[in-house]
Structures are given as C-alpha cells and as structure tokens.
C-alpha cells in the first residue's frame, strides 16, 4: 500500500466525522492564527518604532543620567538628573554640536473653560524643532526669548486641540495647565498612531516654564545633534569629557544606532515572547488532536481488526492514523493561516496598531502545526497498529 492510498483512507475517515474533525482542528486553527497575528503585531510595532527613530537622523545623540549597560540591568532611578547648568556646559564645551536640547516629560491635566483633558507635557528649548519632527497646523513654536523668560506659552497636539476646542481655532486661546494660565501659540497636525508615545496627546512648553510650573529641575534626557553626521563619535567624546567632572560615570550617551539596536532587540524579544505564548496554544491544539485520535482508535478497534484480517500490516495502520492526525493539523494550519492573515489585515485597517504578516511566522507556525500533528499523532497511531487482530475483531 502506498501513501496515496493511506491518504485517501485517512481523508475519508476525516470526512466521515466532519463536526469532530472541525472541532479538533479548531485548536490548531486558533494556535496558528494567534502566532501569525501576534508576531505580525510585534513585527509591525518594531518596524514602526525603528522607522520613526530612523527618521530622526543618524546625527543624534541622547544623553541620559545613570550608567546603563546593554543588558539594562540594575535599572531604577539614577542618582542624579541633569539640570539646565549641565545643558549650558554642553552648549559651551561641545563644539561639534549644532543643537543641545534638554527634554522633560510630565503627565498632567489641561483645562479650557469647562473642558478637561489628560496631556503629556513635553518640555524642551527652542532648538527642539531641530531634533523632533512635527508639522504645525497653525501658529508657531516657542522662541528663545520665551524660553529665556519662562513664558507661559503652549503648542497643542492635534487631539488635545480638538478636545479642548472643538470646531474652533485654539490659536490665542487661554488654557490652564497645573493651575497656571497659558496662551496657545500653535497647534499641530495629527501624526497618526505613533507608537513612540501618542504625540497627538502631547503639549509643548518651554523647559524653563515647565521647571517653574511643575517645581522640578530634573531633566530626563538631553538630545545633542552633531553638525556633521560623520562627527558623531567626536561629539560623543566631547560630551563625555564635558560631563565626567560633574557626573563621573553616572551618565550614558546613546547614539541613534545604539538606541535603535536596543529598541529592536527589546521589541524582537517581545515578538518572540508573543510567538511563544501563541505557540503554547498550538501545543494545546496538538494535545486535542492526540485526545481525539485516541478516542477514534478505540472507537474503530473493530475496523482496525477487519483491516488487519484482510492483510493490513502494522505499518499500513500506523500510516493511516498518522496521516489522519497530520491531515487534521495541516488543514487546521491552512485555515489558521487564512484566519491569522485576515485578522491582521482587519487590525491594520481598523485600528492604529500595525500588523505585518511575516513569511517566517507563517512558515514557522505552519511547520510547527505539522510537527505537532506528527508528534501527537504517532502515539495513538502506534497504539492502533499494535492491536491484536483477534482481540480487535472481538471488540464490541
């Protein structure tokens, strides 16, 4: 007997029990679809984050307080944050820098009239526009004079603008942030579902203003832009030289490349984790197959006896039942791929979450489903093949 024959017998058996076959496949379908979908989302997020970082340019350096190793171990609050004096030091001593931008981020609430909205306050100096891309819908960014004077001016992200001032131009309007009145000097175009924080929910104020209004001087990072992308390493050395007298080794300079590397390592790990979790459901699906195959074998004991009596060898019975199990997992795999793919395109279309279906996820989940079928199919099939024909024929 050949494979084609075993295959035909197995398919006939599956077709004879359609509802059961479908329910058994469901485990594999869900498993494969979950792998494809979750890996798709993981990959999509990774692509988007690294893409948006790459958009910033390769001549950027980020200085953060605390000593970080690549393993990111021993986290927690750094001993000391930067202050505006450190920013001054950098501006004076790092000659290759075209911009030095201190950055603070604070969560708060903004009010206008009786409307109120949660915002993320991003504070920087007037050179912030050199480092962070953003498109003004109307108005302007704050100026150096406003930074120097710690003026209460604010530029709104698009969702903040529409929530506080529906159907109005917010330009020139008054808002309250942390109990202080601010004047709106600009607002931005929507940036879409940026995953590096919801940029549309941010408001932008001068860093000096932020320090006064929120009563903190802690600067969480300083972005330094080198004039020439080829000088990034020289600029990094200058930064290190400028900060070492004050901070010792308690600060870290990341280049854009390093940040990208760390981020994509991190997101890649996350993707693998998602794949692993989904893989577990695939494994559970495989156990479902084994369960049903065991039931099927004992239910068809007499059939096995008949087949053996008329000349089926051990191998014929073994292959028939293995092919049945693998058939279930392959069919489940194919349906799962379609479901996962469909789900990913729906998510991509109707939510801001990106989902890229990757060929490796499809290939991996499908072959995993296949091997799950083989692995969990062999034991019931072996059991079937070892039945004694006399006992099997007598079975009621």
């Amino acid at each position, binding site marked *: 007997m050949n494979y084609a*024959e075993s295959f035909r*017998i197995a398919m006939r058996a599956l077709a004879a029990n359609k509802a059961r076959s479908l329910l058994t496949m469901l485990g594999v379908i869900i498993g494969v679809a979950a792998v494809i979908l979750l890996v798709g989302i993981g990959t999509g997020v990774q692509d988007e984050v690294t893409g948006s970082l790459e958009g910033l340019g390769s001549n950027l350096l980020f200085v953060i307080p605390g000593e970080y190793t690549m393993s990111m171990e021993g986290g927690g609050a750094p001993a000391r944050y930067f202050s505006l004096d450190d920013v001054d030091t950098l501006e004076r001593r790092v000659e290759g820098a075209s911009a030095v931008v201190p950055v603070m981020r604070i969560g708060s609430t903004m009010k206008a009239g009786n409307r109120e909205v949660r915002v993320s306050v991003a504070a920087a100096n007037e050179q912030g526009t050199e480092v962070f891309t953003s498109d003004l819908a109307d108005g302007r960014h704050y100026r150096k004079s406003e930074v120097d004077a710690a003026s209460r001016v604010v530029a709104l992200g698009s969702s903040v603008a529409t929530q506080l001032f529906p159907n109005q131009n917010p330009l020139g309007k008054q808002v309250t942030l942390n109990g202080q009145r601010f004047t709106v000097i600009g607002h931005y175009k929507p940036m879409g579902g940026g995953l590096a924080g919801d940029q549309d929910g941010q408001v932008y104020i001068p860093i000096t203003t932020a320090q006064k209004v929120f009563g903190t001087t802690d600067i969480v990072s300083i972005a330094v832009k080198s004039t020439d992308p080829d000088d990034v390493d020289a600029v990094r050395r200058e930064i290190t030289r400028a900060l070492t007298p004050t901070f010792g080794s308690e600060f870290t300079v990341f280049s854009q490349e390093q940040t990208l590397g760390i981020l994509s390592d991190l997101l890649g790990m996350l993707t693998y984790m998602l794949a692993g979790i989904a893989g577990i459901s695939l494994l559970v699906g495989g156990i479902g197959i084994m369960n049903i195959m065991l039931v099927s074998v004992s239910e068809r004991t007499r*059939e096995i006896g008949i087949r053996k*009596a*008329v*000349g*089926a*060898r*051990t191998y014929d019975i073994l292959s028939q039942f293995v092919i049945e199990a693998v058939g279930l997992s392959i069919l489940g795999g194919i349906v799962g791929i379609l479901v996962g793919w469909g789900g990913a395109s729906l998510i991509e279309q109707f939510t801001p979450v990106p989902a890229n279906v990757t060929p490796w996820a499809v290939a991996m989940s499908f072959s995993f489903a296949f091997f799950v079928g083989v692995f969990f199919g062999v034991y019931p099939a072996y059991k079937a093949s070892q039945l004694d024909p006399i006992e099997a024929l007598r079975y009621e």
Partner: protein
Amino acid sequence: MTTSDVGPWDVVLETRDVTKTYVLEGIEVNALRGVDVAIRKGEMVSIMGPSGSGKSTLMHIVGLLDRPTSGQVILDGADVSRLSQNELAELRNRHIGFVFQSFNLLPRTSALTNVELPLVYGGVGGSERTRRSREALERVGLGDRLGHTSAQLSGGQQQRVAIARALVNNPSIVLADEPTGNLDSKSGVEVMATLQGLHEQGITVILVTHDDQVARHANRIIRVFDGQVKADVDVTDRVLAKPQTIATGEVSE
C-alpha cells in the same frame, strides 16, 4: 474420497501437532493440545465443536491470525508457523478470505469499497481493483448493490458482501466463522447456498460452526473437543441449500 487417500500434493493447508497455550490471569489454558488436520484443495470442510472446545483457536491458527505455541502450520507446502505478524498479514491477504458471524463490514462505506479492501492492501490499484471488486459482488448476486452501505443492506446481503470481500483476492481458502449465526433462516440459506456455490466452483471453504445442521452443508466434518480432534469424517447426508432467490453466477477466472 476419504482422508486416507490424501496425497501431499493436493493439501492446501495442514496443521502438524499444533498446540496453543494461553495464560489467562496467571492460569495456563491449553486451548489446543496437538491438532493434526489437513485441508485439501477444493474441499468444503466444517470444523465443529462446542464453545470452549478450542474450535475458535484452531480457526485463528488456520486463518493465520494467530501463531501456534508449538507444532507447524503448512500453507501450500511452506511452514508459516514462525512468521512475523506482518508476514502473516501478507499471507492472509493473498491466501485467506474471511467471513465472520457479525459480517464485519466497514460502517458508512459502500459495498464496493468494502470488497476493495483486501486489494488495497494487496497493492492492486485503479480500474483493476474496481473491476475485480465488481466481479466479486456480481458473483454473490449483488451486482446491483455496489453503492449501498451496510446500513442499506439486509443481513443476508451484508454477509454476501463479506463473502465477495473474501473472494476478491482469489484466496486459497475461504474461512467462514458461524456465517449464519446472525441471520434469519431464509438469509442463512442464501448464504449457505452462496458458499456451496463457491465450493462447486472449486474454491476451498472451511466452515466453523457449533450447529450440526450448518456443518452438514460441507462434505467433511472435523469435530474438535477439549483441544483435540475427536472425529474427522466425510458427510454422507450432505444438506444442499436451495439457491431459490439468488444465482451464484459463473466462475470468472
């Protein structure tokens, strides 16, 4: 013809001092205790015995479903008593056709597919398989029931499908185990007539039964009692099943 003038050249299957011992829950059971039987080509033999006599064990050994504890089983001149299960399966496929008391057809499967089964495992494929299966069904008078599943056939018809399945590989022996046991008397007559028809066409038939009346359809009766052959006699008053409703068809060799 009596058993004494059997030449080795026309014996198709023979057991020589066959014993079979089971261990059931720690107790040894001697199901067969030195059985010698010889089945000649073209014969119709009944193996008779009450339950517990070892009749079923003998049938399993003669049908190559089981191996003896000691002694030899000679099929077409070759000792087959020490072959592996897979080798026995191949021999069963080519030499033995089974007819069981409870028909043992595959459920939800057409008569034709059921009959094809031995050919599937015999490696016969495609149109030849279908042709031979159809012929076998025509031979037992079921040429018009090819697509019927067992649920759509009467008991007698199901048993005749089983007979067609037993025939399809042109076996040396058709082994029928209580073939009328699950049938009403009318269907029983049909089935016995079919088996007798096969015998007339030159096919060796072994009938295993506890029923004297059924056994007398053969032309020789081997009586088994307590694990041994107690009698081996020719039948003088053979019962002929009247094939009233079916035609057994012609030999199509």
